[in-house]
């Protein structure tokens, strides 16, 4: 599973999953923290729809952490002040970069969580439609 899809599932999904996957690795391998979780900013670059040009909308607070497993780095970056989650994401990233056997087993867990996220978002979107206007033409 590619990183974009994987990080979307881990961040949008139940954070207990990221913790349990990371804990599995931490209990078996030597995980060295290269950069403790720390705060920083991500500048949001976006496209406006009038002339389709780019501009900067503003910054987003993030927490970043870097770890190493078998001399291979992994990084975890997440919105807001979430040091533990940044650490878990870094461990998971390093596990994939190192090609650890355990990561092969994670696919099923992640796919199951992805389905839950999609169902939840579909429900949220559908519930918003309760506020959709049904216009009636009046006889005047």
């Amino acid at each position: 599973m590619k990183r974009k899809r994987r990080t979307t599932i881990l961040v949008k999904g139940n954070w207990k999953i990221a913790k349990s996957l990371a804990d599995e690795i931490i209990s078996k391998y030597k995980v060295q923290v290269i950069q403790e979780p720390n705060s920083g900013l991500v500048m949001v670059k976006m496209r406006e729809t009038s002339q389709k040009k780019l501009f900067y909308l503003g910054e987003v607070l993030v927490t970043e952490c870097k770890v190493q497993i078998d001399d291979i780095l992994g990084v975890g970056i997440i919105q807001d002040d979430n040091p533990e989650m940044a650490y878990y994401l870094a461990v998971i990233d390093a596990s994939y970069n190192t090609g650890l056997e355990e990561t092969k087993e994670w696919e099923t867990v992640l796919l199951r969580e992805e389905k839950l996220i999609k169902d939840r978002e579909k429900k949220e979107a559908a519930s918003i439609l309760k506020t959709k206007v049904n216009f009636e033409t009046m006889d005047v």
Partner: protein
Amino acid sequence: MGYVAVKGGTSAIEESIKRLRYERLKGKQVIDVEVIKHSMRGLIDQIMSEGSLYSRDLAALAIKQAEGNPEEATFLIRAYRSTLPRKYYSKVVETEWMRVERRISAAFKDIPGGQILGATYDYTHRLLDFSLYEEKIEEIKEWVEEFEKSLETDCEEISSQLPKVIDLLRREGFIDQVKRDDSEPEDVTRKSIEFPTTRSERLQILTRGETGALTALGYASIRGYGTLHPTVGELRVGKLPIYIDYPLENSDTDEDSIYIGEIQVTEVESLIPDVKEADNENGNKEIQFSIGYGICYGQNETKAIAMSILDNCLEKSHIDSPVHNEEFVLMHVDCIEATGFISHLKLPHYVTFQSKLDSARKIKKENKRDEKL
């Protein structure tokens, strides 16, 4: 009269700061930051937008510290922001990816996907609800539970990508077709602006501008100091995903990017009619529409609409009016710059004022002497 250098006030300042703390605490009530975060959505959105930093937690903390004063809370956020390293730039965010929570058009009744009201004050009576004095947590929990249960119905599925109203007009030829421009934007937080400004600088200054300032200038434009009377083509509130390129490798493939979270924004496209000479042989005039673009953090619809008006005004800088003058607009809408300059007037100006007073006294003395002659 000579100048006298003075020092002192340290103890008075220390006592003043204690007094300020006392003013916040003397009621012996503590408001939890989590309570602010979950109950002051409007103020949090305003502070994040004007502070130009998306973090509901920090905005709530700033509101608590500033006792709900928006200019002070924004100042705290901007000050904190300046202490943090900018680690990354996001991948380009396209608003077509928005998970829509509200979407309306004032231009068309029937739009593909429909008018979705979402959460809005627009249709509420502005009557004080005295029952809120007696609001109980148990009652709230019960109401929320019932409401959430009521949402679990079979409802039609919302399209993940609602078509844009402006795209319909573009297809009809009423709005100019434009190609995507990937030129790197300027960043006003890194380089001071010079006039004339670029579009990216204008949009960045407007989106972090003070809500009241933008609203006042946008209103002035419609009232007669500008040439516009816009129609809100589309207003959307929703969440946008933020991705960054993977920092450990030189990989810029989209699938290798990192998802960091999502931000809520309000986006407005206003339609402004422009009379244009047609390209045809008889040279008849035609009406086309230009778009004013507004966007800001959180749900702040008045600000986003006002921004869209000012964006269009500044695109027409040849018009002789204050709201079409980019220096007039852009140099005065920033909360920190404006409130900072105004509030500095409270600080000691003993020397400059004494100098003015000396001049005034001298002139008065000279005038009296002249009168005697």
